[in-house]
């Protein structure tokens, strides 16, 4: 299936969960994640399957005013 992560298209095997994705991308640290504009809490990552066309945003804290 194809999803977008931070605006870029990624091809992933079927039945990939959010947890699988963050491991695959090596982004497991201090991050938060939303799919199709809804936050997916970390506690649900292992149970949350990705679907074709999902738009995923992964954010972190950086310096800002």
């Amino acid at each position: 299936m194809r999803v977008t992560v931070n605006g870029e298209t990624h091809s992933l095997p079927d039945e990939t969960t959010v947890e699988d994705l963050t491991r695959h991308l090596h982004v497991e640290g201090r991050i938060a994640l939303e799919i199709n504009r809804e936050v997916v809490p970390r506690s649900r990552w292992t149970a949350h399957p990705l679907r074709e066309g999902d738009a995923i945003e992964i954010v972190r804290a950086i310096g800002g005013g």
Partner: protein
Amino acid sequence: MAGDPLVIAGRSYTSRLLVGTGKYQDLEQTRDAIEASGAEIVTVALRRTNIGQDPDAPNLLDVLSPDDYTILPNTAGCYSAEDAIRVCRLARELLGGHRLVKLEVLGDKRTLYPDVAQTLSAAETLIAEDFEVMVYTNDDPITAKRLAEIGCVAVMPLAAPIGSGRGIRNPDNLKIILEEATTPILVDAGVGIASDAAIAMELGCDGVLMNTAIAEAGDPVQMARAMCLAVEAGRLAWRSGRMPERRFASSSSPTEGTLT
């Protein structure tokens, strides 16, 4: 200052200087400047993670631990209520249920002035979702009052445009806002140099939030210390009550007993 805490959303802070973490050369300079500022509340931005980046690269939150600082996630860069609300929800997730946020909904890129209608709308939604909202706004007393009425925990008018370093451009409006305040009022944006911060505090502001004035100084760590002292000096001066102004001189030494 001990005995004169800044209270925001029921929590007490000794320092009345809040600082941003943007525009520094590196994380080490960020950490050193923020330490020198004495600030207890520090703003951070949320941005997309760089996919493919070294996963062991130091993270801002490793340098400025939420155990040591009150992290204030900021919606800077948002131009709609919807985007600002998304950022706050992500911040709450990122920081493990954290409720305190800085709401900033901008109107345009040239002035970075707030979009007041979008700001009010976002604030209402966030408050309904149990966020504690510290809100960036313009220096309009009516808007400031309205934001306090709907439940913002601090109202933060600009003194001059963000990053401009132009100082306290409209003290008259700040005074009106302060006279009618029912929440802490902090100057957010526009401070350029230590005296600007002191002036804001001498007007009676509850605190000052700044970033560029420190980060873009020749020596950010030293300027951070200067700002710490200026905020404290301004606060002490305001609490002391200034002397009356006169048009003509008033001798400091006794006029009696002078040699004839």
